[in-house]
């Protein structure tokens, strides 16, 4: 039984934490939040230098050639730091190229990701709500160009390459890679301006299919999102844990009625429940990391489970943080709102919690040898 990270992996985590404590105090997220910048360019360069951006990219493609266990630990530390960089989103695009791209695409794109020159985003949604196959109207035309509009692409303000879900001339769903220099970008007034999203209008933007185009685009997308969800669950876990730790410090420090508010039973009990939610999330994240590293058949269920658990823990921790900091928690000057905003941003970035719960039950039923979907659409269970 060895359900923990190795000493080497833990060392990497410690290095990451030390680095981020030095280079990415919470003031860094605040400075991006209060500026018009799409991210912290300096930290992004630092992340490239540390080898984080190429964590799972093979050395042959300019990466560090670590594994996914290392990747998730870096994500957790970036979450702790509320790092204002598009690490997980961009890594998801790199991962998509890694698992579904052609050899040529890997060679062409991945070195740029590892070096930090390439920054990816997921251009999926076209309207409010869950992204469904039937709602994809963006066209990838026979001439290799895109036409359509995407909204709310996570970290879209900073990205220069988008993984786009579109429909080809035959109506089939495809995943394509589009250079964003050739699209019209509208940076969103984001709920979390430290990691602003963006919309894109494609009108003749050149884009190439991911991979050889034989596999069903929707199925590949689900696989990409499952893998990204595990990495982001660690980011959420880090953010949740930091919010929790700061809240704990605050309730030990803040006095009311002559004693620290952390000695009041109602607050203690809520902290205990929150602690339990965090540990549930952590354990589910660890299992999902194992499934991701081993790419086993349990990955889809494990990814859904980790994402649902981490989203909930992160949202709850940030909501309680504002509340337990009291009136001051509602001010701009305190950092609570950075957590409140980030938690929601992350909860939406890969699709909202309801979508992942729904998918979780599909997978749960499959793993029990049952079909729970009642769906007719074949790709959804993939």
């Amino acid at each position, binding site marked *: 039984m060895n359900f923990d990270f190795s000493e080497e992996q833990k060392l990497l985590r410690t290095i990451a934490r030390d680095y981020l404590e030095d280079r990415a105090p919470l003031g860094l997220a605040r400075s991006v939040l209060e500026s018009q910048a799409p991210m912290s360019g300096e930290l992004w360069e630092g992340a490239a230098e540390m080898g984080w951006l190429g964590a799972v990219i093979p050395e042959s493609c300019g990466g560090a050639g670590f594994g996914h266990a290392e990747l998730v630990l870096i994500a957790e530390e970036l979450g702790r730091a509320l790092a204002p960089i598009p690490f997980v989103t961009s890594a998801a695009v790199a991962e998509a190229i890694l698992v579904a791209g052609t050899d040529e695409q890997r060679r062409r794109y991945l070195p740029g990701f590892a070096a930090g020159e390439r920054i990816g985003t997921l251009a999926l949604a076209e309207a409010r709500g869950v992204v469904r196959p039937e709602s994809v109207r963006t066209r990838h035309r026979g001439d290799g160009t895109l036409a359509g509009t995407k909204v709310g692409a996570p970290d879209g303000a900073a990205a220069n390459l988008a993984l786009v879900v579109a429909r080809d001339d035959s109506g089939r769903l495809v995943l394509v890679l589009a250079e964003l220099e050739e699209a019209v970008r509208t940076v969103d007034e*984001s709920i979390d301006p430290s990691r602003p999203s963006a919309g894109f209008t494609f009108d003749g933007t050149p884009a190439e299919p991911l991979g050889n185009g034989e596999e069903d685009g929707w199925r590949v997308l689900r696989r990409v999102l499952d893998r990204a969800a595990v990495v982001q669950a660690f980011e959420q876990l880090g953010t949740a844990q930091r919010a929790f730790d700061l809240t704990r410090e605050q309730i030990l420090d803040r006095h009311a009625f002559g004693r620290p508010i952390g000695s009041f039973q109602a607050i203690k009990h809520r902290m205990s429940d929150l602690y339990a939610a965090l540990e549930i999330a952590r354990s589910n994240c660890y299992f999902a990391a194992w499934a991701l590293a081993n790419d086993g058949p349990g990955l889809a269920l494990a990814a859904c489970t980790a994402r649902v658990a981490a989203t909930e823990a992160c949202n709850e921790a940030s909501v309680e943080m504002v509340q337990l900091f009291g009136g001051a928690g509602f001010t701009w000057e305190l950092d609570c709102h950075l957590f*409140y905003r980030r938690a929601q941003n992350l909860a939406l970035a890969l699709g*909202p919690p309801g979508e992942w719960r729904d998918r979780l039950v599909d997978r749960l039923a499959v793993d029990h040898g049952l079909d729970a979907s009642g769906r007719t659409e074949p790709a959804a269970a993939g």
Partner: protein
Amino acid sequence: MDFNDSPAEAGFRAEARAFLERHTELLAPGETPPGPFIGEDPEAVRRSQAWQALKFDNGWACLTWPTGFGGRGLGPMEQVIWTQEELRYRTPVNIFSIGIGMLGPTLMKHGTHGQKTRHLRKMARGDEVWCQLFSEPGAGSDVAGLTTRARRDGADWLLEGQKTWNTGAHFCKWGVIIVRTDPAAPKHKGLTCFIVDMHSPGIEIRPIRQMDGGSGFNDVFFSGVRVSDENRVGAVDDGWRVAITTLMNERAAIGARGMTGFGPADLVRLAREAHGPRGKAIEDSAVRARIADFHVRSAGLRYTTYRTLTALSRGETPGPENSIHKLVGAPLRQQMAALGVELQGQAGAAMDPGYGAQAAWLAAPGMRLAGGTDEIMRNIIAERVLGLPAEPRTDKDLPFAAMRGNRS
């Protein structure tokens, strides 16, 4: 059971409408009445004062105040009817509720004859606007833990310290402040209440920037602010009793206005538009179940107000059920707004003026904190409504200055 006015109430309502018809006009369909005033537009302040003067001169300003102070000595039901009607018409924002609703009654109970004569009619007519200075950075839920000091200086007092979460300091002439005058006494015993001229030297007003970017409140700093002993309200070191009167008036405010803002109907509209995991979100029963629960609470609060109004209408004291509004309503708004954001999926990360869910979600935490946190409201209901025993207190009898955790 019926929802109609009694004949007397109907007559009063007609009177109110007649006045409003004469001086303003009904809101257009879809137009909402202005929310509580939080901005800094001097023109809006002037318009608000002019409307108040007009109301006062026609007997509509302070219905429940005694006639001697410019009121009409009416009951709370008439006040509710007036408010219901006024909200249907296009009128300026109301910047007098803290003064007329909370501070005026406090002066009536604890003020000197001179203070009442000097202030109450001007307050009622809106000629001078008032604000309240109770909360401090280290004393929110536990107001009596405040550390702003007043020291005697001849016949005057000198104030030193900081107040926070003040509404309106920048356009107010007067404030009511509670400060510590005897740090050696137990915490509730060494406090004194004063009227302070907000234009006094040594007062600095800084707007607080909220987490949603808005600025509805101020920090107010006092450096050697001189206050004459004439402006003391109540006895020296007896300020807690005065403050309690104000806080009680704050909490007795009746929610005739109801829940406004992003609500169940907005969620239904949004869910009809947005995609869920299968089909439209409105077909998603997880979404439906949440909307149903929101409607249950939202409707329940509305009908709870009806129960309160019924008691008022009968001249009875309303039941304790009125105490649940803030405890239920504040988290409800937060949860509704959160679902509104969530339903939008990736697009929800952008501020959406169409539905306003994101703005509501960013503003919502404030409602759970202002005017008594959820936790304080639960304490109050448990102890005052349910009669459950207070927790053991360690801070009641110790000298204030001796307690751990007090910044002083």
